[in-house]
């Protein structure tokens, strides 16, 4: 139908903005990678504040945990009137053992537990107006800068986790690679991912809009 004059429908966008700003946002990310790859430093840099406590600080017992343990810290940060509850889950002990078989199991269990918690809240008869969202929104996977290919541990982990969570692979401590090495490494990683049919974020099956696809292709 044709509108003959101004109605004011687009005012609903402002209403939406006000509502979301009042509600606030929740963002949960998980960082996975071997110790010493710079995970905590990167998180602190990303959010420009002391989110994670680094494991290499003096006075702290430097002990590699026997099994993978997950530690979550939650902070509230605010920018331009937008309040965000940020939860960063760290995974010390990942990939640090001699035998790393099934070291991804505690992580998968944790992610599924969060989904389970949300589902439980959702199917209650009297549910809360705003269900607290502890589901992991993104998982940043740190790849050590070997410069060669992805290791079996990396492939196994990403394969399993890309099915249940958005995985963002990241080359850690990239200042140890020259630009050409870096480009080659990236290409090899992309090839590896394609060969093993691992779909990392942004996934191709969510590309419904041509604008989205253009943006995502560039990211990929």
């Amino acid at each position, binding site marked *: 139908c044709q509108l003959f004059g101004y109605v004011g*429908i687009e005012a609903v966008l402002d209403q939406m903005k006000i509502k979301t700003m009042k509600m606030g946002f929740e963002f949960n990310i998980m960082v996975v990678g071997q110790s010493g790859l710079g995970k905590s430093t990167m998180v602190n840099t990303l959010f420009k504040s002391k989110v994670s406590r680094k494991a290499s600080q003096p006075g702290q017992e430097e002990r590699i945990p026997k099994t993978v343990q997950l530690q979550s810290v939650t902070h509230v940060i605010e920018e*331009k009137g937008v309040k965000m509850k940020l939860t960063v889950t760290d995974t010390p002990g990942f990939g640090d053992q001699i035998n790393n078989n099934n070291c991804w199991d505690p992580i998968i269990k944790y992610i599924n537990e969060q989904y389970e918690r949300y589902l439980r809240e959702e199917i209650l008869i009297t549910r809360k107006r705003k269900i607290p969202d502890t589901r992991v929104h993104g998982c940043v996977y740190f790849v050590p800068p070997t410069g060669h290919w992805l290791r079996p541990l990396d492939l196994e982990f990403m394969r399993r986790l890309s099915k249940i969570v958005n995985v963002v692979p990241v080359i850690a401590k990239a200042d140890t690679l020259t630009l050409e090495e870096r480009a080659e490494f990236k290409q090899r990683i992309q090839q590896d991912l394609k060969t093993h049919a691992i779909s990392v974020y942004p996934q191709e099956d969510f590309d419904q809009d041509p604008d989205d696809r253009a943006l995502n292709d560039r990211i990929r």
Partner: protein
Amino acid sequence: QNDGYRTLSLSGHVGFGSLPDQLVKKSIKQGFCFNILCIGETGSGKSTLINSLFNTNFDDPVSSHFLPSVHLRAQTYELQENNVLLKLTIVNTVGFGDQINKEDSYRPIVDYIDAQFEAYLQEELKIKRSLFSYHDTRIHVCLYFISPTGHSLKTLDLLTMKNLDSKVNIIPIIGKADSISKTELQKFKNKIMSELVSSGVQIYQFPTDDETISKINTIMNGHLPFAVVGSTEEVKIGNKMVRARQYPWGIVQVENENHCDFVKLREMLICTNMEDLREQTHARHYELYRRCRLEEMGFRDVGPENKPVSLQEAYEAKRHEFYLELQRKEEEMRQQFVQRVKEKEAILKEAEQQVHTKFEHRMLMHQEVKLKLEKKKKALEDEIAMFIEKKANAELLQSQASVSTPLVSLKRDKDRK
């Protein structure tokens, strides 16, 4: 609101301040759904008002007064303004208030609203669901058109509104308000509001918790019910064409705030509170419906020992119950079957017995008859033997006699014999 979490201060620009914009952009792409239900008697100005509100011409055929019952007619339109796409659904009540017996007039309306909630609930309960692309048909607002009598609400109005206030956001409107004078109008409005309050009807209150809009919303709350005039014709005023109604004694301009509350309604409905209306529908009315419906189906959040029970456990319990019931019924049927088989067997056995006895009896009879016949046969055989003997004797005598006596006398003897 912080729940005991530490607040960190940022030492630089991170960039998540654009999160609301990201959401808005996504919503623009998705498009919005807005569903309006118009309730009012035939001829109260519903279609004209909707045409005026959205500044377009929805093709709505005029309905007659002689429909046997109330039914609802829904039409969906796609409107686009700048880059915002709105899927607007207008639901009209056809034949409302026309019947002689209006006891059940509100029923079809309540049923329609419930049906939309039910459809959403079904989609939500599906295992493989697509809520993201679901076309939401739940009614977000109900514009209730009050007839401009100038006195008070009709009983039908109170009855209908009382039945709808817990299911939908109601905004009462006085239609065709150009037939009431200014002084009468204020008295009419006051009377209507006091009647609504005293009957306990909960109409939609514009939200006053957000500072940016609370002032204007409070003012608007005081202007309820809005007295509106709609028009599909345009009249030239000064050098502009405006929507207006032209009477022999003057012109009533739709968008003139001195003439009617049309602009206020449009402001409140679309510009300021559309999102809140949608949210109230989802968070309050739909949740209430969902709760009642699930409880009706037998699910509880709390088990018999007051321990929390999840929906899954309730499902399991119900399924178990059902299974036991099924087993019981199966057992019952099996017993019945065994019983019947036994009975039939007994009957057949008896019949067999009878046949057997008959058979024996007949055998006996057969034996007796056989014996008799044998005896007779024996007797006859003896007779035959005797006869042969006699014949032999006779022949012997004859052969002896033929030697000594003449043939004639033999013949005579023979004849005699």
